[in-house]
């Protein structure tokens, strides 16, 4: 259901959730925002992927917590910053998890961004899984030539990544050149304003969800500043 929403509405929800995480000033409020995000993820049926994102960001948030604690000596503030980082990542990843590169392209076009910028950005997003697959295949090829990626100290491990990184970069550069040629040979840039295959029109459901999201955001912002007195920032 969430996946079928107009991508502009999904972007609005993510932006509002992002803004809310910046407005919160206590751990309780942030816990509420995070809980709301989990509910959205459950409705969108991407709970497992969001959980993976949270686990991944947890490592960085520990780092943020430690740094903040060293400099502020305030446990609650440090915890808030660390948890806020997780919330920010979850709010943005909810949009990217539920939006296809094609939808992303349409969203960017509605903001009248230059076509080349939109194309470059969307292509970069679309090629992330391809590059990931490339990385695995390159690692396989180098491991089959006796390269031990998991052995040695940090410096040696970094040095061992050179045989992986060079083919990855070279392949990406070659692929981008080939893609540019293929696009040009299919009349990319031939007309200044090309027509679009899909044009989004907001449905009633989209409008209802968008208005509800704005109202919820307004309520949350109001309650953070005027209802709950407990503040740590």
């Amino acid at each position, binding site marked *: 259901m969430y996946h079928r929403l107009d991508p502009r509405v999904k972007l609005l929800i993510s932006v509002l959730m992002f803004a809310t995480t910046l407005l919160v000033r206590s751990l309780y409020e942030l816990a509420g925002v995070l809980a709301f995000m989990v509910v959205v993820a459950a409705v969108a049926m991407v709970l497992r992927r969001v959980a993976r994102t949270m686990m991944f960001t947890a490592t960085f948030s520990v780092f943020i917590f430690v740094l903040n604690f060293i400099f502020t000596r305030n446990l609650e503030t440090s915890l808030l910053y660390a948890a806020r980082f997780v919330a920010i990542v979850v709010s943005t990843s909810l949009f990217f998890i539920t939006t296809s590169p094609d939808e992303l392209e349409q969203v960017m076009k509605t903001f009248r961004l230059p076509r080349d910028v939109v194309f470059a950005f969307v292509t970069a997003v679309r090629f992330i899984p391809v590059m990931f697959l490339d990385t695995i295949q390159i690692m396989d090829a180098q*491991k089959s*030539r006796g390269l031990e990626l998991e052995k040695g100290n940090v410096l040696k491990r970094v040095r061992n990544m050179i045989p992986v990184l060079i*083919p990855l970069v070279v392949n990406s550069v070659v692929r981008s050149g080939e893609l540019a040629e293929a696009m040009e040979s299919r009349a990319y840039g031939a007309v200044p304003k090309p027509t679009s295959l899909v044009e989004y029109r907001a449905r009633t459901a989209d409008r209802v969800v968008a208005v509800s999201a704005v109202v919820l955001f307004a309520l949350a912002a109001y309650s953070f500043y005027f209802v709950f007195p407990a503040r740590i920032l």
Partner: protein
Amino acid sequence: MHQNGVKALDGVSLKIGSAETVAIVGENGAGKTTLVKHVTGLLKPTTGDVTVDGQNTRKTSTAQLSRKVGVAFQNPDHQLFSESVEEEMSFALRNFGFAPELVEQRVRWGLELFGLEEYRKSSPLVLSGGEKKRLTLACILAWDPEVVILDEPTVGQDSIQKERLAGTIRMLTSSGKTVVVVSHDIEFLWPIQPRVVVMKAGRVLGDGPAAILMQDKGLLDSARVAQPQLVEFFERLGERPHAPFADPLDARRWVEETRR
């Protein structure tokens, strides 16, 4: 087992002896590359075991196994990274701790074998697709592994290079190496006369000598594998009275004699 729950390989049971040449054929997605990745230890089976020269691949790292099993992957661009061809060739040799004199000797041997001497000091990245492919083969053969796996070795190769490659495979087999070739190129495989393993949807549909298996039109059709032209020619001749050849191998011998 694939991430989405599909069995990438299902009930595969194979025993490959030393000095044997085995061709693995089948349509795209049949599980050919997945199978050879199990032999190198890059993939570990969820059930069952893969044993290479008595070593269980579960208990051995790929880097350790690679001393025995050399794989030339389908896309040469996935492994070339060095500043020069000679450095590229010596990469694995240095990883395995070969002495400098031996490295030099093996590099020279590999470059000569694949006609790449003139590119010795060139960057491997500027070579043509076919040359890159030959370089990756040379890199593998340089450390003299007991098992050589070639994944689609004929892609981007002209007919002369294909013949050379077939000769190299025969040479490897006669020197006691086990060669496993994953290929769609039936015309390339047919003259080598390997043992053929036909795969479809992760299963082995057929396993036997090329001369017999390649005549099984039903099996080849179900695995979407083309029949070699010579076998098709032999079968069409067989439909006529007084067929001149006893079997496809006889027809092959006749073709080779005529060439001479």
